[in-house]
Every structure is written in structure tokens, then in C-alpha cells.
């Protein structure tokens, strides 16, 4: 593949939040607040709320024994995938780790199919054979749903490779966590992505904890936006709890990748309210920390408050959205509960073609 001249690295907090990276509770100054129209706010509210309510229902169904194995909930991080998706095109590819339910809903995959996969039923998106961590949609260009921490970063770089090879201008949106950001293959991929100027946006969902190990305890340097510096990949740290900043940064990053300038890193400072998985009591952090995030930074509450303040809608309008979202989730849960288990013959299908 042809190389392009390396562009100037623009590391850390460029123009976005200007916040000091690594500050735990710093409430960053926010110059140039990105504009969100009424339509943007309402769309973000609805999409984030769907993820929230879906995940709450999944947690509930896990507790009832309807969902087995691992179940990693996205609650708290909704602004990241929602904001990214608001800046993306339908033909852009996306790939993430095992905390993937939100990503699938965001790209428009069927909530019924997602929930039925969680319950391991035949109407699940992978016929019940993938589970929570392994769902895909070639139609929506969603490539999983990957269970090995960091593996999706190389795979996502490969999606970008394919786009460039074919002369298409789609972008690969490759999501991974702060934990994966220490995996070796991430840097192997960074190197090749820049070497070949592949159209990939690396979205690091920094929710501060790799399972139970905090970023500070796992990483020599905690500014993850800077992780591409050795490869001359620009990076920004973004307030991942505010969907406006997420979309704004994503537009820059995606445009950069789409116009042939190569990869771009977005470090999304976010937070998961729940444990790493359903079986994690999250004893490694204080209740106060979680509560402070919920009450002060919640991505959905922020949008809700703005809608009311700016009179984009009133309480009744929001209640109506809530009602519609709940109906979708209830329907998905019913569907997933009533769908039959896969036929035993499915054990032996889809191994090879």
C-alpha cells in the first residue's frame, strides 16, 4: 500500500475539552460547546435511553436466569456509541469488545434479535450460538462482539484495510477499552494503520477500570489519547459523558480518516455504573464514586435537562419517549423469552461452509 507523508500529531485534548487528562474529578472547562439542535438532542435522548432501558432489562433477565454466562452491561457509557454513531455514515464499519449490546442497538440492529441472542434462542442474531459477546450484522456492517481483549483492534484495522484496498471511503470505527489499550497487538495495529494510512478511528472507551484494575494501577502513563504519539497518530481526550462532545470529536476523527489522512484516536472518558460483568460486585471502587458519576455526569440526565431547559420538549414529551422505549424493550424481552432454543441439529451447522 502506498504511504502518505506523516501528518503532524495532534495529541491530547485538542480543541475538544481542554481538560487535564487523568484528573479524577476535575470538571473541565468547556470552551466552544458543540451545537446540538432540537432534533439532535431528542435523537440522542431516545437512543441513549433505549440502550439504558435495554441493559437494565438484560440485567434483570440475567438475575432471573434467562441469560447465562457473561453479560457486560453498557450502562453509564451510552453517550460514547450514540455520539460516534451520530457522526458516522451507515456504510462505516464498527467493531468492539464483549461490552457490545449498546453498539448493536446504536447501529440499528434489531433489539428482539439482540435480546434473543442473550437468552440463547434460535431467533437470536447468531441463532443462539454466539451469546452476549458474539453478535454480528453484515447488513449494518457490525463485526462484533469479540471476546478476546484487544483482538478487535487488529480486526478493526483490517476492516479499514479492506476499505482502502477496494478504494471505498468508508471508515472503521474500532472500539476498545482502557484495559485493551495495554495489549501489544493494539500497537502493532497502530503502527500498520499509520504506515498504510488506513481509514480507522480508534475509540478508547476509558471507563477507568479494566475489570477491577484501575487505569492508574495498570498503566505507566494514563493519557490514552497520547498512545498513538509514537506512530504520529493524532489523538484527543473527550468528555465521553456528554454526547455533544463525543459527536463533535467523532466528526473530526471520521473526517480525518475518510479523507485519507489515516488513523485517529479518541479517548472517551466515560464510566460504567455496573460491575465489569453481572458477577462483579465492583468492590474496587467506592459507592460515592459511582454515585457522584450518576448524579453529576449521567449522559442521559444531561440531555434530558437541556431538552427541558431549552424547551425542546416538556416532561410529557419525554415521558412519551420513555414509554415508546420501554415498549421496545418489553417486546424484546417477551420475544427473547418465548423464542425456542435452537434445534439440536444446529450444533453441527455453520462450522465450515
Amino acid at each position, binding site marked *: 500500500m502506498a504511504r502518505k507523508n506523516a501528518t503532524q500529531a495532534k495529541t491530547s485534548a485538542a480543541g475538544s475539552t481542554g481538560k487535564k487528562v487523568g484528573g479524577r474529578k476535575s470538571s473541565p472547562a468547556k470552551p466552544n460547546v458543540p451545537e446540538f439542535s432540537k432534533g439532535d438532542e431528542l435523537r440522542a435522548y431516545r437512543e441513549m435511553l433505549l440502550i439504558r432501558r435495554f441493559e437494565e432489562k438484560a440485567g434483570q433477565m440475567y438475575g432471573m436466569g434467562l441469560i447465562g454466562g457473561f453479560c457486560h452491561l453498557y450502562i453509564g457509557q451510552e453517550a460514547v456509541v450514540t455520539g460516534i454513531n451520530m457522526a458516522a455514515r451507515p456504510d462505516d*464499519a464498527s467493531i468492539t469488545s464483549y461490552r457490545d449490546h449498546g453498539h448493536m442497538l446504536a447501529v440499528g440492529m434489531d433489539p428482539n434479535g439482540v435480546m434473543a441472542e442473550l437468552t440463547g434462542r434460535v431467533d437470536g442474531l447468531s441463532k443462539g450460538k*454466539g451469546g452476549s459477546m458474539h453478535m454480528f450484522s453484515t447488513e449494518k456492517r457490525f463485526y*462484533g462482539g469479540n471476546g478476546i481483549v484487544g483482538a478487535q483492534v*487488529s480486526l478493526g484495522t*483490517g*476492516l479499514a484495510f*479492506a476499505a482502502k484496498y477496494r478504494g471505498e471511503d468508508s471508515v472503521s470505527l474500532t472500539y476498545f477499552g482502557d484495559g485493551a489499550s495495554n495489549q501489544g497487538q493494539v500497537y*502493532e495495529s497502530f503502527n500498520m494503520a499509520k504506515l498504510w494510512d488506513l481509514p480507522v478511528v480508534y475509540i478508547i472507551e476509558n471507563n477507568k477500570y479494566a475489570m477491577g484494575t484501575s487505569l492508574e494501577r495498570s498503566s505507566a502513563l494514563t493519557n490514552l489519547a497520547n498512545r498513538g504519539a509514537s506512530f504520529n497518530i493524532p489523538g484527543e481526550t473527550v468528555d465521553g459523558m456528554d454526547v455533544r462532545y463525543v459527536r463533535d470529536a467523532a466528526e473530526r476523527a471520521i473526517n480525518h480518516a475518510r479523507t485519507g489522512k489515516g488513523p485517529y484516536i479518541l479517548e472517551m472518558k466515560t464510566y460504567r455504573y455496573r460491575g465489569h460483568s453481572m458477577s462483579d460486585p465492583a468492590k474496587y471502587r467506592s459507592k460515592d464514586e459511582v454515585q457522584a458519576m450518576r448524579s453529576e455526569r449521567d449522559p442521559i440526565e444531561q440531555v434530558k435537562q437541556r431538552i427541558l431547559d431549552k424547551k425542546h420538549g416538556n416532561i410529557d414529551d419525554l415521558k412519551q419517549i420513555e414509554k415508546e422505549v420501554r415498549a421496545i424493550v418489553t417486546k424484546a424481552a417477551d420475544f427473547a423469552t418465548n423464542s425456542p432454543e435452537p434445534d439440536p441439529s444446529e450444533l453441527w451447522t455453520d462450522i465450515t461452509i
Partner: protein
Amino acid sequence: MPTDILMPALSPTMEEGTLAKWLVKEGDSVVPGDVICEIETDKATMEVESVEEGTIGKILISEGSEGVVVNSVIAVMLGEGESADDISQVPAPVAAEPSAVQPQTEEAAPKTSPQKTSGASAPVFSPAADPDLPEGVEMVEMSVRQALNEAMSEEMRADDDVFLMGEEVAQYQGAYKISQGMLAEFGERRVIDTPITEHGFTGIAVGAAFAGLKPIVEFMTFNFAMQAIDQIVNSAAKQLYMSGGQVQAPIVFRGANGAASRVGAQHSQDFTAWYAQVPGLTVIAPYSAADAKGLLKAAIRSPNPVVFLENELMYGVSFDVPIMDDFVLPIGKARMVRQGNDVTIVSFSIGMKYATEATETLVSEGVDVELIDLRTIRPLDMETVLNSVKKTGRCVVVEEGWPQFSVGSELSARLMEQAFDYLDAPVMRIAGKDVPMPYAANLEKLALPSVDEVVAAVNAVTYRS
């Protein structure tokens, strides 16, 4: 006393080469580091430099000479005060004597196209015609190296989605020269040099396959693929199943597998059994050039992830390859190399070399051997093996990999399960020894299977010994 300049070996497997060019003439003075000649093998062209100071007294091998045996005297160098009169008759090659020359680092741009070498020789054996070939098809002699090159090139000409990536595949023309000439034909978009990052580039290739491309990933050797085995197994092999049949991974992982020669434990491992255990993968390990070509083309067209295991020692070996516009062999079909009634020998890849030579010996002693080349290890062609063992009642499996949980172990178990009543003797496994590969020449030889071991095993199961 004059010093002999010997034909150097460029690699542990080189036995002879071409003296391409002399850069000095008789009477020239040389100092250490001066390049005196160029030698050429099927893999590379290298400069040879002097390690001593002196005068070139006599050139014994003229330039352009082919088949110059390693360690034969190619020239004689005179020290201070010596003259050409001091040179006695041409001495016999002495292997132990240190050479006055040493090869320089490998040249990046060898001139020759892939060609056959007589460096390693295929056993003389007349195998039965492959029933998968059209009757009376014309054959051409071709090395395994060239067969692999042709397979990739033909498929790349036919399908723009096929590309080759790996370390040194493009500008260097392939570490083992399998991709020689492909950069020139297909350009840097489709023949892609990667950094030395197996884990990363394998993941990138698998991701590209998810997006619909058909990558060929060359591992310089499969030893290095261990860095990438997560992407091969967890990402490529399981994708179709995990996605309920939705996402395919049409990709070929290929390269040299198994022991080469004198490269020590970390570079001498046979991974056949490892990959053959994984549902979702297709595993192919050809022996002949025809199988290498026909099966690599099939692998590239396969919608499944294929692990294609080659063997460095076989690259230079030549076989008959059919002259056909589009020669593709079926995956998952063993080849009956020789039909017989007394005993079944099953092998694959370079194991076929031992098996074939043992068969020659045994046939000459009156044992009617049936010889099967598995060619594909997963899916395993049990039908062919079972039918054979039901006829002969005896089976010996030959492979270079470790014996525990080997291909032979699997075949033994299946034969026990599916042909127990037909067996007249226990199934025997001839495999590499259960040790890391040693470096010392004698130990390495002991660690590998031998023709004698195969013959002894056949004698044991036929109760001849």
C-alpha cells in the same frame, strides 16, 4: 602454504550452487572483506568475501558453473612469498577445514525466477497416477516452490480480492522466494510487506477477510504464527459459528512448517496436530508440487479459513505437475500413492519422504505396501484410510511432529473405534521424538523419524521381525 577457497553453504540445507560470477582474476591481490565472487542458489544470490590477505593464485571453477558442491575448492589463494608453483594438484574437498571465505549477507534482489534445484532429491518412486487428474494429462517438472508461486499468481490474476501479505513477501521476493516476481506483477497494493508483527498483521488480515477480501497470509515459518494463533483460532476459525453462519473468514495462512535443518528448537516445530484440532479450520499439508499447487488454489478459493502447512526442505524438490489452465484439487481427499495388500502406511507432508523410501525398501523385500498421502489433515479422509486398513489389517502412521496427541494418535484412535475387528496388529505411530529439537547434527537426526524406523514398524505389524 596456499589456502584453498571452498564453495560456501548459504544455508544448512544447501548442498550445491552456481558460481555465478568471479569478481577477481588470477594474480589479483585481495584483503579481508574484498568480494571475490557471487554464488547463486534457487533462494538467493550472495557475495563471497575473502577473510584473508593474499593473491588469487588459481581459479579452479569457472564462472557460470552450476552444481558446484559445497566445500569443493573453487580457487586457491597465495600468501606472502608464495607463487602459483606452490599449488599442488587440486586437493579433494575437505569439509572440516575452515574455508578462507565467508558468505556475506543475502542479496535482496535475486535474479533467477523460482527454479528447481537438485539440492534435495525426491525419492525415486513411481506413484500411482492421481485419479483427480485428467487421464493422459501432460506433465512438467516443477519445484514445490514454483508450484506455490504459480498457485498464488494464478488466483491473484483471476480475483482482485486475493492479496498476499507477510514479512519480506514483496521487495525481498519472499524469505524462501515463494513470492518471487509477484511484486513486479501485482504491485504493492496486492503484495504487501508487513512489519515483524505477526499478531497484528494476522488480525488485520482476518478483519479484511470479514469485510470480504481473500487474504493470503505468509508466515515466514509457522513457528512465528504462534504469536498470532489467537487470531487464527479465536477470530478466524470460530467466526462463522459464532455469527450463526453470517460472517465468513475466507483466508489462507501459509508458510513453512516443521523442522528445517539445524535451526534449533524454536524454529523446528510441526504444528499440524495443533491446528487440526480446531473445528472451523481446514488444514492442508501437501507433499508433492502438484498437490501444493492444486490444493493451494483450492485453499485460496475456499470460503473457510485454511491453514496451509508447507515444508522448507521440500521447497526445492521437483515433481511432475500437470499442465492445465486451471488445476485445482479437492480439499479433504487423500491420495492413494500405491495400492497394496499387506500393510497401510499413512503419512503427509515431508513424512511422505520417509514413507516413500520405506515403501521402496519394503516392496523390494516383498511386502505389498499400500501408501496413502493424507494431503488434507482436516477434514480427514477417513474413508480412504478405513477402506485401506480394512483390507490390510495393519497401519503405520508417519509424521515429523511430536508423538503425543499427534495426527498418528488421532488416526490410531479412529481406527481402533471404527476398524477394531479388522486390525491384525496395533496401529503404530512413527513420529518425531518427544523432545525439543536439538541443534547438534547427530541429535537432530535422532529426533526426527527415519526410514529405518518406518521399515521396523512395518516389520513389527506384519510380524516379519
